[in-house]
């Protein structure tokens, strides 16, 4: 029942998602009856497929009724989505839940030695977490494209007559090229708003000659512009911003922080300030936009990577009043900022952290989806890595500091916490989603272990490779990737090639995000990443050296995948190789983009953003945690190979979920297996290892990709050759097959304890 229901749910999920992507998202009307109608259609189509192939009528009926009830619940829980979104979400959730249950059953009740079970269990936990992460991404995409009623979608704010409060714009600067700052200040001088001041706070720039030019610029621009140089000032950017807050004009009601490399449009303040006429509004954010060269593939893909957040995540979060304040191109109510105690100097993403504290006080936030200024992006991959490291590290810091406020029971614990459920969800998920890349790397390591095991041992006894564990994760992986690419294309209006490159640009930073997650969990204070440097080498070599770890990991994955297939050319090693190639491509994208970034010379005024905040963490040093984990896994796996497997069929194995041969899904009846009886105990079994069977791979998926190796204890036809040893038969396993049913096994009790008999039936299919 479970296996068939899972296949059916995956079918419904695939069908509903494909229909949504094919055009269902365009439907702008919604009604529960319409949704239930669409749900019925999806379920019936799935049922027809099931009944024509693998399904048993009674089981299909039960599964359909269950799915219908589940779908109806979600139709009423998501009244602002169209039918396609509601049904897709319900089916995604159902398929994921069923797979997690199936995966647990397969993990828990497959006869394994204890260490293999331990590895399998850990793998299952990681797999479940990855699937939950994938669900959060899916929810975000569907919320954006299938929402038919938006309550808080703004592209502009209605002007309020005579409301023109004073605004204090803070421009923190550290070691900025004067010509870059000049552009920013000039743009601020031309704002079509009369009541504002600009405070340029230069913190810790060494050498008076470097900051004096900016001082002169401020003097030239008039009394509206003021300059202060802070020497030996603590707290990095937030320290400077906190000082600016102390020195803000007393009559200022609104403050804004503008990066020193932003060219702001004249109507920036006129467009955003009216939002503050509502005293409940704590902060307003407009998208951060960048100047980029569309002819430079690195610049273009990086730009789209940034834009994704402001085109997809922020509108969705805004609908739930859960946006984050991103610093530049945003405005805050000064009193709210003062109320929360200013910017947090401990957190290196002080802007996002401040927004959480403001929302916690019960203020509202607005996201205005219209670009009012453009800044500079890092022009090398190294700069991009450092920036992503900082963002991720800061995200983990926020999670560490505020996790207590984001829990479902937070309001009960602290009644002053005004965060709504949605706000808590989005802030919690926003922090946890960083760990997707960590999971991705771990799955890559598992895959590599599987490949190595298949090369040297020919078997990796972690988990049985039953149909669903092979097929369902592959379907998840394919569909989630397709959805991500589709969202990229639709939301950013990209061609397929550009979208693919942007996606790879996004994923190529997985390694640095992993490092930041680990460092963020371990270290208390803000740190920045120091990438490996090369001296006296060419730019190309430097670019490669900056991504040496990514290249090494990518090549390791690729090499292992190819080697496994070459040594044992089978379908399963082919599948393993394919997954490892995919994983490798994500890491090898890093040197590719690094080389791309140095291929194009930056325009003269571009600069590397200053991201060094805190103590430096050398990448080589930080990577040791990952390698430590890898070594532990390798040792555990090596020991697992040596520990004997169960020598007889345990009773708990009967609880394994039954398998449905994958051929049945296509309506092809599998070749019946021979009835095996009285199989003598093979010599190898007595030694505690099963006869060789192909390495089993169980891929799973996250928003990007996840895949994992697992092995099988299930004897396959290849490994079922009985090896007579002269031992008397003590158990009988009979295997019967029907066209619509997998082999059924019956354990015949005997007077003596039945020794383990490696037959397909008992392990794979206790019941049908």
């Amino acid at each position, binding site marked *: 029942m479970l296996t068939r229901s899972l296949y059916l749910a995956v079918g419904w999920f695939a069908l509903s998602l494909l229909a949504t992507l094919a055009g269902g998202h365009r439907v702008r009307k919604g009604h529960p009856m319409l949704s239930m109608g669409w749900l019925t259609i999806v379920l019936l189509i799935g049922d027809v497929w099931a009944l024509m192939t693998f399904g048993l009528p009674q089981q299909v009926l039960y599964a359909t009724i269950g799915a219908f009830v589940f779908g109806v619940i979600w139709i009423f829980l998501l009244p602002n989505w169209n039918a396609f979104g509601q049904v897709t979400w319900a089916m995604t959730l159902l398929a994921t839940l069923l797979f997690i249950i199936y995966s647990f059953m397969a993990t828990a009740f497959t006869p394994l030695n204890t260490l293999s079970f*331990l590895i399998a269990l850990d793998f299952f936990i990681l797999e479940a977490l990855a699937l939950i992460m994938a669900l959060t991404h899916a929810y975000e995409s569907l919320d954006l494209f299938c929402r038919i009623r938006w309550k808080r979608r703004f592209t502009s704010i209605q002007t309020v007559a005579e409301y023109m409060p004073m605004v204090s714009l803070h421009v923190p600067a550290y070691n900025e090229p004067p010509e870059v700052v000049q552009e920013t200040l000039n743009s601020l001088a031309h704002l079509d708003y009369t009541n504002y001041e600009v405070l340029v706070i230069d913190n810790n720039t060494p050498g008076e000659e470097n900051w004096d030019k900016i001082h002169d610029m401020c003097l030239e621009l008039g009394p509206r512009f003021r300059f202060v140089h802070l020497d030996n000032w603590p707290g990095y950017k937030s320290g400077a911003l906190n000082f600016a807050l102390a020195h803000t004009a007393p009559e200022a009601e609104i403050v804004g922080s503008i990066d020193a490399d932003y060219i702001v449009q004249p109507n920036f303040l006129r467009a955003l300030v009216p939002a503050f006429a509502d005293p409940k509004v704590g902060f307003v954010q407009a998208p951060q936009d960048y100047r980029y060269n569309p002819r430079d593939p690195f610049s273009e893909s990086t730009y789209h990577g940034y834009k994704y957040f402001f085109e997809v995540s922020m509108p969705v979060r805004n609908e739930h009043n859960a946006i984050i304040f991103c610093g530049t191109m945003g405005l805050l109510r000064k009193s709210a900022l003062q109320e929360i105690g200013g910017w947090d100097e401990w957190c290196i993403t002080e802007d996002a952290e401040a927004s959480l504290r403001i929302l916690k006080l019960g203020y509202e936030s607005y996201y205005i989806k219209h670009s009012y200024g453009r800044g500079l992006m890092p022009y090398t991959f190294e700069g991009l890595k450092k920036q992503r490291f900082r963002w991720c590290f800061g995200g983990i810091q926020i999670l560490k*500091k505020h996790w207590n406020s984001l829990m479902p029971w937070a309001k009960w614990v602290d009644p002053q916490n005004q965060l709504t459920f949605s706000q808590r969800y989005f802030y919690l998920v926003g922090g946890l989603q960083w760990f997707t890349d960590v999971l991705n790397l771990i799955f890559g390591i598992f895959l590599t272990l599987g490949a190595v095991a298949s090369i040297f041992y020919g078997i990796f006894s972690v988990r049985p490779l039953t149909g669903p564990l092979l097929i369902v994760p592959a379907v998840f992986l394919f569909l989630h990737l397709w959805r991500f690419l589709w969202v990229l294309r639709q939301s950013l209006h990209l061609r397929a090639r550009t979208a693919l490159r942007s996606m790879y640009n996004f994923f190529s930073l997985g390694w640095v995000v992993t490092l930041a997650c680990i460092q963020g969990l371990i270290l208390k204070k803000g740190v920045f990443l120091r990438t490996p440097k090369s001296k006296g080498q060419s730019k190309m070599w430097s670019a490669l050296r900056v991504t040496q770890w990514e290249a090494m990991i990518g090549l390791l994955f690729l090499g292992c995948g190819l080697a496994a297939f070459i040594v044992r050319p089978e379908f399963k090693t082919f599948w393993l190789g394919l997954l490892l190639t995919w994983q490798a491509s994500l890491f090898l994208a890093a040197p590719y983009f690094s080389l791309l970034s140095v291929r194009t010379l930056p325009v003269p005024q571009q600069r590397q953003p200053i991201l060094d905040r805190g103590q430096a963490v050398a990448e080589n040093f930080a990577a040791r945690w990952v390698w430590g984990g890898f070594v532990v896994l390798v040792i555990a796996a090596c020991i697992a190979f040596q520990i004997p497997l169960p020598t007889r069929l345990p009773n708990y194995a009967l609880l394994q979920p039954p398998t449905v041969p994958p051929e049945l899904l296509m309506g092809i009846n599998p070749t019946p297996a021979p009835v095996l009886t009285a199989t003598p105990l093979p010599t190898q079994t007595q030694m505690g290892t099963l006869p060789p069977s192909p390495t089993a791979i169980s891929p799973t998926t996250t928003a990007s990709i996840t895949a994992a190796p697992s092995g099988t204890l299930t004897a396959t036809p290849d490994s079922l050759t009985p090896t007579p040893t002269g031992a008397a038969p003590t158990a009988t396993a009979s295997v019967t097959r029907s066209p619509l049913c997998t082999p059924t096994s019956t354990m015949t009790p005997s007077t003596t304890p039945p020794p383990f008999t490696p037959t397909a039936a008992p392990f794979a299919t206790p019941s049908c």
Partner: protein
Amino acid sequence: MDTRKDLREVPAHSIADRSIRDLLLETEKASREGKSQYAYQLSVQATRVVPESVEAWLMRLALAPSFEERVICMNRLNELSPDYRDRYNLSYFTQKELFDREPFLAYQEETDELYRVINGDHLPVNIRKKRAAVNPALYEPSSKLRAAYGWLTMAIAGLLLAGIGTLIFAPLAALSAAQAGRHSRSRAEWGNSVIVLLFAILLFLLGGGLLFLFALHWLG
């Protein structure tokens, strides 16, 4: 400095028996009548008689003839009461003038309410932060609750060892949480203790289940 000279000119005993309130009223009256020098001298006296009076220092800040003295008054005001009500933004304008003259500030130290800096002329300046006191970087619960969190984290990590670690650490977490609950300093802390306790129990059950499965595999 002018300040010291002014302080010498008006003997303190002449106003010693007068209340500070009267003195300030008289200062204000003199100032309104255009007797700025006299008003200034009265304000100096007021700050001498009651050096902790914010109003007196504010009055003196408003009347001080020299920029340096205004900076001194501002510093003193900020020291005395960082959240005083500066109706005419006198302190802000002094600060603004100071930074316009010399935009260099070197950090010395800070308190919850003030930055202590020196400017390019080595003049010490106290600057009000004008914001609520900042909470510690990370929430610091009581030591008992902190211990409970620590054990709970270990118990969660223990799930990776088929629940073996969980069965060891979850009871410790529960014990620490119960103790933390008894000695809680606030309602929030009590609430967190209860949550930890419940989670520890839940984890213990989960760990037990996983360990059962582990035992099944162990025993074959």
